[in-house]
């Protein structure tokens, strides 16, 4: 062991240690996700009374527009968003995401067939959100909702499309 090998290995040793202890946090900071703002809030969709009863033959599911507050990292935005509301009775109301679980198009209600139909690839869903026909891997995504003070509230979330499981996108 010479003096020169000592200084060489010392330089290389400390140099590599520095690279690792600096490199690890730097890489972690840009490849891993932060847990921030995972919690989503309920948005008010308005009074329950004003929603049509979808189970009366002359009526149909209602498309409701609302302002959805989104936390995008450090910016809080208000996005116009819409949902489909199916009302059986004033206490039994289901809210569906407007996104077709097949590939993410926005589906519509076919008044004559009494079914939801996606214009992109012809996925067809019943009024209960179940797949009737077409390429859709799962039924319509129901959103969590609640009724308080005669108002309907919904927690708007987005789900991964194209897979059989209903998985929330953070």
């Amino acid at each position: 062991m010479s003096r020169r090998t000592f200084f060489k290995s010392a330089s290389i040793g400390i140099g590599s240690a520095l690279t690792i202890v600096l490199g690890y946090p730097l890489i972690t900071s840009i490849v891993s996700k932060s847990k921030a703002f995972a919690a989503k809030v309920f948005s008010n969709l308005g009074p329950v009374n004003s929603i049509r009863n979808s189970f009366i033959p002359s009526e149909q599911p209602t498309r409701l527009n609302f302002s959805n507050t989104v936390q995008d990292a450090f910016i809080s935005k208000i996005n116009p968003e819409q949902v489909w509301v199916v009302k059986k009775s004033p206490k039994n109301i289901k809210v569906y995401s407007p996104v077709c679980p097949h590939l993410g198009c926005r589906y519509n209600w076919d008044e004559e067939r009494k079914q939801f139909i996606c214009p992109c690839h012809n996925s067809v869903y019943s009024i209960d959100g179940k797949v009737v026909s077409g390429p859709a891997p799962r039924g319509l995504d129901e959103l969590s909702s609640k009724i308080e003070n005669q108002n309907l509230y919904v927690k708007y979330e987005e789900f991964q499309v194209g897979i059989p499981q209903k998985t929330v996108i953070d």
Partner: protein
Amino acid sequence: MQQKNRNWLSERLPLGRFINAMLDEKIPGGPSFFYVLGSATLFLFFLQVVTGIWQLFYYVPTVDHAYSSSSYLRIHVPYGWLIYGIHYWGANIMAVLVALHIIRVFIWGAYKKPRELTWLLGVMLLLLTAGLIFTGAALPWDETGYWATEVGTGIAGTIPVIGSYLEAFLRGGSSMGQITLSRFFALHTALIPALAFIIIVFHLIAFRKYGSVGPWKESKRKKTGDFWPDQVAIDLIVTGFIFVLLVWLSAFHPAPFTGPADPADAAFEPKPEWNFLFLYQLLKLFKGPYEFIGTIVIPFFIILLFIITPFVDKKVSHSPLKRMGMMTGGLVFVLFILIYTILGVKSKPAGNNINISVSSNTIKKPKSYTSSPTAMKGDSIYNTYGCAACHTISGSGGKIGPDLTNEYMRNRSVQWLSLQITNSKAHFPSSVMPDYSMLSKTQLGNLVEYLNSAHPEAAKTPADSVTVNIAKTGITSDSLAAYTKMQMGKLGAPGEAASIVGNVVVGRKLFAINCASCHGVEGIGGDTNYGSEIGIIPALYPVNKALYSQNPTQFTENIDVFIQHGSVPVGAYPVQKMLDYGDSNSLTQPQIANIEAYILNLNHVNRAQIEAPESAKIFFYITAILYLTLMLWLIIYWRIINKNQHGK
């Protein structure tokens, strides 16, 4: 094959020759720990560049999001605290290293012929470093940075003739705003670093031409050592230590969250960064028409001193003992800067008697009562007068009055506590506490000091203690939670303030002005609210169970909706309603953020808590252990070598 590839590459890109030229150097007198200052500064410059680029992945240079984006990086991004911390502390340590490097070069006379240009390039780098520190402070657009920039650009504006143009250039107009931030961003992240990089290269090329000066004595210069790997290893031992120091500072002494910039804040005490305090202090000596002496004559005179140094000191000898004139001059200069820096640290701007400083984001924890003789006397008064019959401290005592274990955390003034003890009804008309007016002034002082010092046993969470308050008012926690829940639905979404990390000290002042009249001094609550179901205005310490959360972001969002949109208490005809401070713009979003940080602090939650606080400490311990292991290994290795050589 490998050799062939190497040849192919080196013929086209002679990197190896360049690296050899940089590393292959003989140091007169051999390697030394004195020579690490330059390399350490270079290492810090590199760290600043890397952590600076990494911050760009998150930072946004706009006045409405600069603060929230840097807070987001520091709190929510994994290792964001480290990236920001290294950059913040790195800038401070770099300033110290640059100063030490200059002093070292000055003492060794390393600026003498033929190294004058190396020195002058170094002076340029000193000015660029100052420029980086000045422009960098503005970028988070927080209270301290904003006001330091306001003052700094204002000073530039007082320079005769060119001042107004310089100020207009820096601010992008006559007042501070978005253009100012954009300019400081461009200067700090592009122009100055690029210039500094080029000049560093020139500085190194010039340095490599004649190399190190070496020891003062001619005889000692005969023996030479290698730059690579000997000096490099020594440099790395020191830079490794600096890195561990930076991690420690970032993990245990993070930069304060001074709250978002509030240009309307008249109470703020603007002061520049410590590096510029000597200039700031000097300015005060020159008033009115003589102001230009402080703003331009002295700074230019200082720069001139640096420039003429190599041309004045022309003696061949490098020994400081033979250059006593220069040494005395240098010492006077250093003392002058030091004294004015210290004066600047201690000074307060004239005509501003509101004493508020936001250098810390948490109100300091006082010492334990056992360490103070007065507080110990207070302890015996507490026991003699039977306070423990009603109050609990450290888990023992009665339950009629509030638990006083963490009284010091409520930041009550001496006056407030004294009045509370002598005349409790002055604060709480329905209080059952007897008046202890028989206590002498000294006894009262001792008791207050006792209450305001730290007591053992960890604080119970407000969620536990809230039941006590509910018991007093006759409302079950269930109905209270239900009440809150019902209210929440109506309230809507949290506002911008919920994503801003406020400053506790500023929030405390705002709370006293805007909130204390209903929610009580320091959020104790208890004012009556006729016509509402619970009959009182809710306390904010301890805060309602349903709103409390250990997660600061969640806690802030929970209370933010009330401050933003207001609320009407459940009940037939509530007299008092919570006003919509956010929606009505009665308070700005930064102000609401500060108040929220204060309410969280009352409830023992730190608004600036990073997302994974334990990871910061673990990372420091790993880094420190790794460094110590390496050092131990080097010492053992070194001893073995010396033993072997001795054996021969």
